[in-house]
């Protein structure tokens, strides 16, 4: 493996352009199965920086950026590795399922969400972002007994106003209507899971290391079963893969305020840097790749953390099982409050994720896979 000194590494810093792109990505409505709005942004961002790009049957954006050194492509040693990077374009959200009449719709959840996060929120319906709300019965008309029960999907509705709206119909998708914003050192927005990953891949394609072939998969339907990643991995047939996602940071104080936040079960912590996965509910990360990432972070002085092994999963869960198997690992930007109206991540954690991946790819040699797993 090539060693690069700390001075050589790309010190990525997000400027106004990157923050503007994150805002556009975060505010796009792209619920699983309807990723078109994000797909269009991605295509516009990467078209001039890749050797080939196409949209597959499910809607994945599959972009190839070949290495620029003289080596021929793999699989033989001494050649360039074909590295798949995956970030999912879709987000959890809602689908309108039944027209109650006069602008009121029943809806269902697409992807894993907590029903207790829904009431009293503004929503955008469809790609036109038609405004609506998920209301709640006035507190004055509720009983104390009633308030002990969560407001469930059975009683909640999406309301686009009396008289309805011509731009809204059953089958449309909706998301929380949350403007993206900077909060001091933090980024606040919906769908940071996984638009931060999408933005990471865009940066890596625009600043691609010359020593590897990058196979970037902007995937669909991750939140409903890793469907896009499964077919993307088959198509790309890569030597190895990295899923870039956002994973919960649960570094919050406990109810009794006794434990220091981040003690015990925290999954990841903000300010800890990119989270490297050893194991989650869907993938046992390839130990060779885990070592490669940790060594890179340590040698480059890039903050990083190990995601606490546990449940959950990323696109790597589908990718590592493609064809005869793909050595895979996941790296995530830690983010609080995923799958709610407003998530929170640190800009520095995102920057360090881009830096770590860029540095790791830059020193990647085929020998990384020489040792048997």
């Amino acid at each position, binding site marked *: 493996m090539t060693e690069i000194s700390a001075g050589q590494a790309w010190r990525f810093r997000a400027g106004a352009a990157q923050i503007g792109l994150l805002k556009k990505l975060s505010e796009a409505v792209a619920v699983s199965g309807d990723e078109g709005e994000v797909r269009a942004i991605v295509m516009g961002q990467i078209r001039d920086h890749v050797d080939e790009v196409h949209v597959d049957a499910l809607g994945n954006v599959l972009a190839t950026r070949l290495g620029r050194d003289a080596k021929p492509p793999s699989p033989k040693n001494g050649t360039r590795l074909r590295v798949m990077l995956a970030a999912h374009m879709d987000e959890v959200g809602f689908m309108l399922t039944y027209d109650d009449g006069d602008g009121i719709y029943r809806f269902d959840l697409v992807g894993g969400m907590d029903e*207790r996060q829904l009431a009293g929120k503004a929503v955008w319906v469809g790609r036109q972002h038609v*405004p609506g709300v998920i209301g709640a019965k006035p507190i004055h*008309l509720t009983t104390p007994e009633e308030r002990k*029960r969560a407001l469930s999907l059975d009683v909640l*509705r999406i309301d686009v106003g009396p008289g309805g709206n011509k731009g809204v119909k059953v089958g449309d998708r909706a998301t929380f209507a949350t403007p993206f914003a900077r909060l*001091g050192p933090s980024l606040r927005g919906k769908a940071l899971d996984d638009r931060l990953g999408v933005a990471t891949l865009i940066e890596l394609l625009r600043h691609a290391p010359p020593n590897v072939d990058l196979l970037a998969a902007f995937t669909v339907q991750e939140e409903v079963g890793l469907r896009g990643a499964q077919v993307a991995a088959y198509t790309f047939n890569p030597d190895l893969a990295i899923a870039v996602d956002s994973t919960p940071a*649960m570094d919050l104080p406990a109810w009794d305020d006794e434990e220091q936040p981040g003690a015990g079960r925290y999954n990841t912590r903000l300010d800890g840097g990119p989270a490297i996965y050893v194991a989650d509910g869907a993938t046992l990360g390839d130990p060779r790749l885990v070592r490669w990432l940790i060594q890179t972070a340590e040698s480059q002085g890039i903050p990083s953390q190990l995601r606490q092994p546990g449940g959950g999963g990323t696109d790597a869960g589908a990718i590592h099982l493609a064809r005869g198997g793909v050595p895979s690992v996941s790296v995530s930007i830690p983010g609080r409050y995923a799958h*709610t109206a*407003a998530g929170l991540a640190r800009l520095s954690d995102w920057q360090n994720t881009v830096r770590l991946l860029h540095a790791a790819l830059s020193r990647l040699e085929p020998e990384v896979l020489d040792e048997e797993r």
Partner: protein
Amino acid sequence: MTDLLPFLKSLISLSGLSGNEKPVRDQIASAWEPLTDELSVSRLGSLHGLKRGNANEPRPSLLIAAHMDSIGLMVTCLTHGFLRVTEIGGVDARVLPGQRVTVHGRRDLPGIIVQPPAHLLPPESQEGPVGTAHLLVDIGLRAGGVEKLVRPGDLVSFAQEPIEIKPDLLAGHSLDNRASVAALTHCLDELQTRAHAWDVWAVATTQEEVTLGGARTSAFQLEPKLAIAVDVTWAKSPGSPDHKTFSVGKGPTLGWGPNIHPGLHKAFKDLAERLEIPHAVEVMPKHSGTDAISMQVVASGLPTMVLSIPLRYMHSPVEMVSVKDITRAGHLLAEFIASLEADFMDRLQLDENP
């Protein structure tokens, strides 16, 4: 004429939690300044706008009240860079998780109300709604920064921006009761070109959501002959019972019950019918839930009336109201004021056939 939609949007973009109404009061004062003869602020912070009538002195006066305060939260403590909060006014904790808020610390700080993961909650809160005491507010700053900028007692208001659902429909927080402040403003606008005998005290009251104290003290100080509370009422919406709710867009409601003077109710009802202003009668078997509660029993007592604007999802950050209903409420109020003759009180009767 005040353009009501942008005015109302500006009102619901400002904070004004009960007891701390100054930010919204300043905005209302600037709208009322050209519409009134005198403006003043009461000892408890209510805004008094006087528009003089043309009857001979001593002229009778009436008080039209709309509360400008709104519900919200207050910081109770800081914990590891997060805030804990309590409610100001009636807040259903079930609408809080995921809400964007503004923490009014040493400067205004955007934040999010968060529901901690189950394993960080007490066992009884891990399923079902999480009470306000166990929610947290995250302002995105590191712990040291939070401690410099926030302390217990700081106010926390909803940050939901106004949403123009349709040209006539506005959604947002604090439409209870800024919608009625807009109705009073529309009434004052109409009175610019209408002769009226009585003096009019337009009052944007404080603390309705907690003690009704603003209306009570202003009604005492101003000594009106009549008091009319303008507030919002429950609109038909998913989950709300049909028999207690009114349609958005079909006009204001006229209160009826022990909190309402029957003769005043009749005067409004007759007027609305004569002018063909869409309206509904809202029966209030016990009290009205408005400033009329405290104004009715001020000093030796006042004849009171309640005019209400139907509003969906009351006390949530996405309350929804029809601007047309606001205009109608303001119009009806202006017509009533213009119809008042100097001797109206002599003819106002509790019983139709005494």
